[in-house]
């Protein structure tokens, strides 16, 4: 199963939850996540089943005006 994480393609074994993907990618906290342009709250990572072609955005604190 191919998943796009922050614009880069990852190959995963099926089935895969968002929580498992995040354990694999291990982003440095704090971060927030969107799946297919929809915000996924921290509490929903475990139940969020990924599907072929899903687009995952992981964002971190950044400077801003």
């Amino acid at each position, binding site marked *: 199963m191919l998943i796009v994480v*922050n*614009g*880069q393609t990852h190959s995963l074994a099926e089935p895969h939850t968002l929580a498992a993907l995040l354990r694999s990618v291990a*982003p*440095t906290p*704090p*971060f*927030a*996540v*969107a799946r297919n*342009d*929809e*915000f996924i*709250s*921290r509490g929903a990572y475990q139940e969020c089943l990924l599907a072929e072609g899903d687009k995952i*955005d*992981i*964002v*971190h*604190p*950044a*400077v*801003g*005006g």
Partner: protein
Amino acid sequence: MADQLTLYGRTFSSRLLLGTARYDSPFVLADAVRAANPAMLTVSLRRQLSGSKDSGQPLWNLLRETSRTILPNTAGCLTASEAVRTACMARELFETSLIKLEVIGDEISLQPDPFGLVEATVELVRLGFEVLHYCTEDWVLCRRLLDAGCEVLMPWAAPIGTGQGPRNATALHELRKRPPEIPLIIDAGIDLPSHACQVMEWGFDGVLLNTAVSRAVDPVRMAGAFAHAIQSGRSAFLAGPMVAQNAAVPSTPEIGRPFASAS
């Protein structure tokens, strides 16, 4: 009683809100924050760049050390739905319901999209956000944002990053008169401390700055200059300036002037 800025029930002794972008280094930013003593720091959220080891941790640590109120933005969003999604991510990431709402309607001038602002605001207020807008000085737009549940308005002085100062002084004056009880913060377009002082003299409640500080030759010194200017403008507003007039009036008493012919 101390003169404080109140935004969504939070009180601040400072009336300066400072952006964290475009500094040459995190160290300069940290020193500028110390010099400016801002009420809030604005931030954003972004993907970690490919190949970069910076996952925002240095900024995150700096934010925690400064203990300032964090104001995440939705910079770069072009639609209401995009801004709402970004706000939801920001709320979880920064653990705050405050959001600086930006919905850009024109990518050249970075002019806010009034329709997108109202649409996003209605949804964000429903979701429990406390919204501060980057908006124009258009009174009808501002009224719609207040009707949607906003308690603060942040009209621009000029487009983001232009440093042109208050471009439409008449409209800003008129806006200040319309909702006298609503905090008004000038957001964007300020170049000089004198601009900031001027809008504070007009009765605005605060100023949000970024580029004017971060791109100054000496950002730390400029941060301090803006802090003083904003405080001076506020004091002048509270003091109540004299009424300007056309006729000249000598300030020194005429009575008793030597060599004057007796009347």
